[in-house]
């Protein structure tokens, strides 16, 4: 590990140890005050804590402000198409169980154009972390209504206010088959954010984390009150949930006990959003079927054996 030589006042960090800088690529170009910055920091910290080898780590994103995320990490990255991060990430993981795969997606990316893939990714339940950067608006394309925009949000496509009730991504995900990990956090509570991402990383399956993310440019009025109001958030607490220190927990006025094994209760708690924003682990099932295990189950068959199998099939067509 780290070799410290107090006499020479030096600290030698051997090659094998990764520091935060080792995960840092170009400077993030998000607006100042954008919630994405703090998520980036939290993810880098996770990589460092877990000592993820950068070459074994892949961030796959869609398109949107959040889609730029992989460019700011010094790992492998795939900045693909709008809405399609899930299929790409699933393909990356399918025959490469050795890789740590992260999906970075936005609310339009995940819950609108990519909604079909979202549903199926939950069902595939491949081991990876999916971070939904939910700013409730289309940021990159400049303020159009998102499927998660609160009803009445004034946008460039609905100047007098959006007309439909929003999707609640937590509730929707909790309704999907084979769902195995659903958590919610906010970008402005670093300890909770960190603990949530950590928990997600440890989950043996697809960990779906909705991060309520501030977009000060387009959604200032939506998030400012939530950020300032100590009553706006309710923490879901449980020994099997997101672990916060006593001190951190004390910072929240509203804390409720919620057992993440209880999916029925989880769905009820997800409804709380109408009054207050619930953050924490809604649901976890470590036993759900994993498609990545199926994907990797027949790896490493030797070429001669593979040739034999094909030849055997060829026999069937021989005359």
């Amino acid at each position: 590990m780290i070799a410290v030589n107090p006499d020479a006042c030096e600290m030698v960090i051997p090659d094998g140890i990764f520091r935060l800088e080792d995960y840092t690529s170009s400077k993030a170009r998000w607006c100042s005050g954008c919630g994405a910055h703090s998520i980036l920091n939290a993810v880098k910290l996770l990589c460092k804590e877990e000592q993820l080898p950068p070459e074994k780590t892949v961030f796959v994103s869609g398109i949107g402000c959040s889609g730029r995320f992989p460019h700011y990490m010094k790992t492998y990255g795939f900045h693909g198409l709008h809405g399609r991060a899930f299929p790409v990430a699933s393909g990356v993981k399918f025959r490469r169980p050795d890789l740590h795969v992260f999906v970075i997606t936005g609310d339009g990316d995940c819950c609108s154009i990519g909604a079909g893939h979202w549903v199926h990714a939950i069902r595939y339940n491949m081991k990876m972390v999916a971070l939904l950067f939910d700013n409730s608006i289309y940021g990159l394309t400049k303020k159009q209504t998102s499927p998660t925009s609160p009803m009445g949000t004034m946008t460039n496509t609905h100047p007098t206010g959006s007309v439909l009730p929003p999707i609640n991504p937590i509730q929707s995900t909790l309704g999907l088959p084979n769902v195995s990990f659903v958590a919610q956090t906010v970008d402005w509570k670093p300890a909770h954010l960190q603990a949530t991402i950590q928990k997600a990383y440890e989950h043996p399956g697809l960990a779906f984390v909705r991060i309520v993310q501030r977009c000060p440019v387009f959604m200032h009025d939506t998030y400012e009150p939530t950020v300032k109001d100590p009553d706006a958030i309710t923490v879901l607490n449980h020994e099997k949930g997101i672990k916060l220190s006593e001190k951190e927990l004390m910072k929240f006025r509203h804390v409720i006990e919620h057992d993440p094994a209880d999916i029925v209760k989880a769905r009820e708690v997800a409804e709380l959003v109408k009054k207050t924003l619930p953050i924490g682990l809604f649901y976890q099932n470590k036993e759900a079927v994993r498609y990545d295990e199926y994907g990797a189950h027949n790896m490493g068959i030797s070429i001669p054996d593979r040739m034999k199998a094909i030849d055997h099939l060829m026999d069937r067509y021989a005359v």
Partner: protein
Amino acid sequence: MSDTTQTLAKPTSSTTGVKEAIVEIVSDSGEGAQKCGQSLGKISARMGNGVWTVEIIPAEIQPPARSREGASGIRVRIGQEEITNMGDQAHLVVALNEQVLFGRIEQNAYKAGTYLLIDNKWAEHTSPDIRRGYLDAILRFKKLGYIIHEIPIEKECLKLVSDARRGKNMWVLGLLCYIYDRDMDLATEQVKSIFQKKTDEVIRKNLDLLNAGYQWAEQNLELHFPIPARQIDEEIVVMNGNEAISLGVMAAGMEVCSMYPITPATSATHGMAETIQSAGGIIHQAEDEIAAIGFAIGASYAGKTAVTITSGPGIALKTEFIGLASMAEIPLVIIDVQRGGPSTGLPTKVEQGDLLAVLYGTPGDAPKFILAPSTIEECFHYVILARKLAEAFRIPVFVLSDANLATGVQPFKRPKIKEEWFASELDQHPWDTDIRPYEWDEDTGISKRPIPGQKGGVYTLTGLAHDEGSRVAYDSSINQRAMEARSRKLATLKDTLKPPKIHGDPSGDLLLVGWGSTRGAIEEAVSRAREKGASVSCVQLHFLNPLEPGLKEIFQRFKQVMTVEINYSDTLGHPHITEENRRYAQLAWYLRAQTLVDIDCFSHVFGQPMSPFRILKMLEEKLDKKLID
């Protein structure tokens, strides 16, 4: 007995042997006609004969019995020499009921003089309607000039089995074995192999049916057209184009085949479903075509070059990802088994409708390679070639097959699987950090790619315009340079290709140009026309992007050049259609643009494969010369 029941036809047998014959077996679905025809094809292939079989498939899974749209069956064309297409009108048809023949007649599958062997059980059916329908049909068939034999198929089968529905096909196989003088030892082996998983009792029954059919024909029919066997010294396999693709995918060593079901592409995945897992791969059935290609791209990016298999409507959905694969230089194999029309329309029917969509369908410029196999054997080998090209050039590679190749069955030399066909081991060596992830070679446009897991190679692949370092390009000159590099790969490949082979003389009055599955029909028509003294040659293109070199020079040696395709084009002389506004068939359109030669086209969208007859008819007109006897 109906009054149409006739004494058997006058002796028409040929003892010297015939050069070839086209046989159809048609029935309601579920009567085993296809198994019968496939077996006839296999026996013939083992006798060294050329064979092409194609299934006749009704649109519905369970169409009503005795209906013209319910025709289910198979066409088998057998010849002394190699057979490359389904041919023209049938020589002989065995029909288990008469109604199913109407659909085939509409499709011009028969001619005056075609032998129709029809089960006569309907003449004595308890339903007067059915009896009348049968009689009417027989009368109509006679008027059309068909030579009718009403034969007691069911009656004879019932002597051996209690449920004739499950047995008639083997009896008919025996009958056909007599008519075309098939080797009965081989036929016996074939029947045994069909039922190898069944009890001895079942095998014995079916062998009895086979032999009974043979004997009945020998004693009662004077139809005997031996097709002489040919010595074969090499091992032969018999399969359709989709099965060949299946084997090709596995023999290419691809670990991921990602798809969403669509006819006529899906059966290519069925063909490998049982074996692929022991051959080291997996089929991923995605939630839709977009996800299917996204998944394949993810796997390819992670170093496991993948294949996605689909048909036209699937290609439409995959378009954006195809552009990404091209721009981000992800090796990928895309197999398009073309069919007619968009998501509905002529879904299971043949069309070569996707060439331009595949060439130009992506927004912006997106270079990709396009290969077009023209035989079943090529369906196998081109998949292997496609993966190699994809990796060597870091580019998406299309293989354009179609419904004709997908369902056409042909014998070919059994490929000997080679280790070098397989994808090489995943490269996880540390990456030389001096090499950037898109370090385009000035001359070839080719660059080396780091694969996740390679230390020092980390980069973020992006769909945005990017420089050699895969950094988002805010400088417009970078995009120009990157596009040039990607495009150069096409020219680089082209420089390694040879001009296509010409079938016929290297110059003359007319050159026909085809691509993909039409090859057999075009070459046969050209050979037949040449026998009649026509100055016509043909050339089949196998590389459509880049095109094989030397085309313009070849075209200039002919007075006229014309493509033959199965897709839509306007016909000159139709209302409003002029030289100026005529819409050309897809290859013609493309070749005109590429060569500035005034290329004509002959194309149609009847939903049927191209037949030599149709081409000959066209040639008669075009060359003003009688070519058909």
